[in-house]
């Protein structure tokens, strides 16, 4: 690993002031540190944001669950409030990586990184999340731009993620057997007016499957999407799963999620 400068920011303002084109925020470090170690990324400055108190913690109101960006996966999975308000969100957190990763990795880091097979982005889409940054509020639908790409500007810091509490929801992941990231993960959330079917792992970026959403908004039953033939042409294909297999898994996992709601 190449040498770098370590900074610990005391508030959001200082953190974003320290940021440059050759810096990264250090939240859980679960993505940043391994990529530096393997020489895939080098930074001149790492700006630790774990000491910014405001960034950690969970608040539940009647309509929403607000989770601070530096809140660890384990805190989300263990939170009684989250379990009560959106049980599928806490079980999603419980299914990320392994205990070591959950004890360090953060929701903000996961979303900022926007790995195409990460779990949280699907929750953001399905639960109509709003991403609060130090500068603005961004709707989830406009936040995830592409593979490892988000709407965040240089130095912009995620402060919290606000999830809308649905009537019912479930997240079903078919994990990569090696890494346990999602080969396909489908987050189904039934809100008052409509149903979201957020899919991660299948394409280069998380997306809301409009056809399934429509079918389920009409009739919230797994039979309404059974046998749906999805277009696999844009789906990922690698040694763990072909595009066709992924297309089939999207439907299967969506059905499972609906049944589990």
């Amino acid at each position, binding site marked *: 690993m190449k040498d770098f400068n370590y900074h610990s920011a005391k508030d959001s303002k200082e953190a974003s002031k320290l940021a440059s084109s050759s810096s990264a925020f250090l939240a859980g470090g679960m993505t940043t540190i391994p990529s530096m170690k393997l020489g895939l990324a080098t930074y001149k400055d790492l700006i630790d944001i774990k000491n910014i108190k405001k960034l950690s913690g969970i608040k539940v109101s009647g309509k929403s669950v607000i989770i601070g960006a530096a809140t660890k996966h384990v805190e989300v999975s263990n939170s009684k409030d989250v379990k009560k308000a959106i049980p599928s969100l806490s079980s999603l957190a419980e299914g990320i990586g392994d205990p070591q990763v959950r004890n360090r990795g953060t929701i903000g880091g996961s979303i900022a990184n926007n790995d195409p097979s990460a779990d949280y982005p699907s929750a953001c889409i399905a639960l109509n999340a709003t991403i609060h940054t130090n500068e603005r509020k961004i709707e989830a639908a406009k936040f995830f731009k592409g593979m490892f790409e988000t709407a965040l500007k240089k130095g912009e810091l995620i402060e919290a993620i606000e999830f809308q509490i649905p009537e019912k929801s479930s997240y079903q992941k078919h994990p990569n057997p090696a890494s346990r990231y999602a080969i396909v993960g489908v987050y189904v959330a039934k809100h008052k007016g409509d149903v979201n079917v957020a899919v991660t792992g299948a394409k280069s970026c998380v997306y809301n499957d409009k056809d399934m959403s429509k079918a389920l908004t009409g009739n919230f039953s797994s039979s309404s999407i059974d046998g749906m033939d999805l277009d696999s042409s844009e789906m990922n294909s690698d*040694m763990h799963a072909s595009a066709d297999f992924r297309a089939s898994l999207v439907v299967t996992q969506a059905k499972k999620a609906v049944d589990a709601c």
Partner: protein
Amino acid sequence: MASLVGSRVERKEDKRFLTGKGRYTADINLANQTYAIFVRSPHARASIKKLNIDKALKSSGVVSILTGKEIADDKIGGLIAGWAIRSEDGTEMKCPGNPPLAKDNVNFVGDPVAVVIAESLAEAKEAAEKVEVDYKVLKAVTSTADAMNGDTIHEGIDKNLCFDWLLGDRQKVKEAFDKADKVISIDIINNRLIPNAMEPRACVADYNAASEEITLYTTSQNPHLSRLIMSAFGNVAPEHKLRVVAPDVGGGFGSKINVYNEDIVCSWAAKKINRAIKWVAERSESFLTDIHGRDHVTHAELAVTKDGKFLGFKNETIANLGAYARVFGTVTPTYLFGPCATGVYEIPAAYTNVKAVYTNTAPVDAYRGAGRPEATYTIERLVEKASMELGIDKTELRIKNFPTAFPFKQTLVHTVDSGDYVAGMEKAKQMADYKGFEARRKESEAKGKLRGIGVTSYFEACGIAPSAAVMSLGCGVGLWESAEVRFNPTGQVTVYTGSHSHGQSHQTTFAQIAADELGVPIENIDIVHGDTDKGTFGMGTYGSRSLAVGGIAIVNACKKIVEKGKRVTAKMLEANPEDVEFKDGEFIVSKSNKKKTIGEVAFACYLPGVRDEMKSPLPEGDEPGLKETSFYDPSNFSFPAGTHIAEVEIDPETGHVKLEKYTACDDFGRIINPMVVEGQVHGGLAQGIGQALYENAEYDETGQLMTGSYMDYTMPRADNFPEFNIGYTCTHATTNPLGVKGCGEAGAIAAPPTVMNAVIDALGGQEVTMPATAEKVWKACKNLKKSNAKAA
């Protein structure tokens, strides 16, 4: 005194390991040490046009940079294949040179071309990036099946063929097949695996200019063998000037048998720069450069009568050696594989033909089971297929072809001294509730799932390798083992063993054996291994040999101690040696109350002479001291055997295979410590099930390893497994005094066919290759649905 052999004695080594006090090679730091980083080929096959170290030499902290040229100039030898194999046509096998640092050609991704030695690890890394190598990239050969049609990798080795070996009688097999009612045939791929020991390889080399001695601390399963190879073939230093220490070693599974490039280079370089050098592999280096396992492509056939008697068997295998033939590379797919090919069955005619090929991939060598898993997989998949095609219950068909009497002289090589295969089968069926399976299958079907059951009956040849047996087969060496039992004057015992523990619990089990033999409390016995300066020459640990060979050497040395003790006691107590009996640590003159404890005898042995009442206790001809050595060369292999049964449930929509039940009923002969055996069985099963369902080393066509990290190489985890249902039958080995057979590899041997037979049973007989990943199984489920629809 109660016997310790057979009881669940807690592991003596656990306190050390569980409190972080283990001392592994990477824990060793020497004064003024330097750090090594190896510059490795990023290409699978290339010639080196130019290598420029000028820039790197100027990098900060660099002490030295050495390349293939210097190592060749110093006449340091290369890595070797330990076993010579002769082809069917009588020609000797063909092995390429394998210099520790490549000079002209590189042959797999990770092949080292230079070593950078610097004051710190960071500086070594930085400088290594500045070494400029100009490669001419050549077309790589990566496929096992097609290797013989690829470009020639090593000059003069036609068709990339190391040898084309035959065991058995083709003519007899032909006659058997001519008589058959039916021939069952199968095409099999035994997937390539990466051993993945928890501790990556490492070494620390030191040179003492005063004594002109090199000391190498290394992650080895066999330090003496490493010293011998480095000395005799590597020309690193004469054996008496080379000390090899393998301290705590965190798992080997065969991958740490070999002497590796880094061992030789660091030892040689430490002398050259007159400073200690430390090298610790990163996990990604382990993936690329540790030996890999398995990688066979096989076509096999079984000739049967319509009522299910086996008549003949043939096995045509292509075995991938990787880029070079290493220590056990050539013996694994031959003598460890061929003789086990007919499994636990009476098959009057059989042959195994193995073509061993070179490819531009990491060297393939012995990995837990080594040859026997590949043999067992083939015969057990074939027998399962036969049971489907003949419509005979899979357990009945097996029993029908089991030997009825022991010793069982097999058609190919082995004479199995003892066993009771029927008893093992019956017990396994009971443990697994074989009868209740159909009901469970229906329950699964009602949930929309597919359920399958799979059986394997296996045997293995352990305790490698009796010199008489293997040398008569044409092997150059046999593998005995040594032990030295040394009493201190005050009565504690140190046992030196030539075997090596890297997870096998020798500190406990060997102490149990010695405690029983000598009647000394187990706390007073130390087991010492892993240092060529401490113990007598030893062969190390692999092939489930430690107990069946190394343990017997300990017993024999203890028996010599007792014999001397009897003579000394007789002298001390003025009795006849023949009248002295030894029991529970006491020498007793029969029909008298005169006795001496073994502690008193030991003390006396160290203080011979005459003073006051004390008279020399040493009989004429005996020397002072109490220390005995044994070199034990077994008369035959030992033959553990057993039956395993697995049940899987498959979700046809996702292809997910859930291992619901796993039953292992093994006959390991006498068991020294049931807890330790359970650990060995569990570990073996985890690796065997890993091969069947998860693990796969995959190269792309250019020779890049696609599964070079845990993000892509699926190491099984605890939650992949059900609670294992483990039981035993027991027939004692008749060829050694303890009656032991060995248990280290059984799980890895039996589990792959057991699990795959269950998966394929669930899939209505459709073949899938290992590992049975979700996508492969999903596809098979779709086919099954289609063919069921057609049938309906």
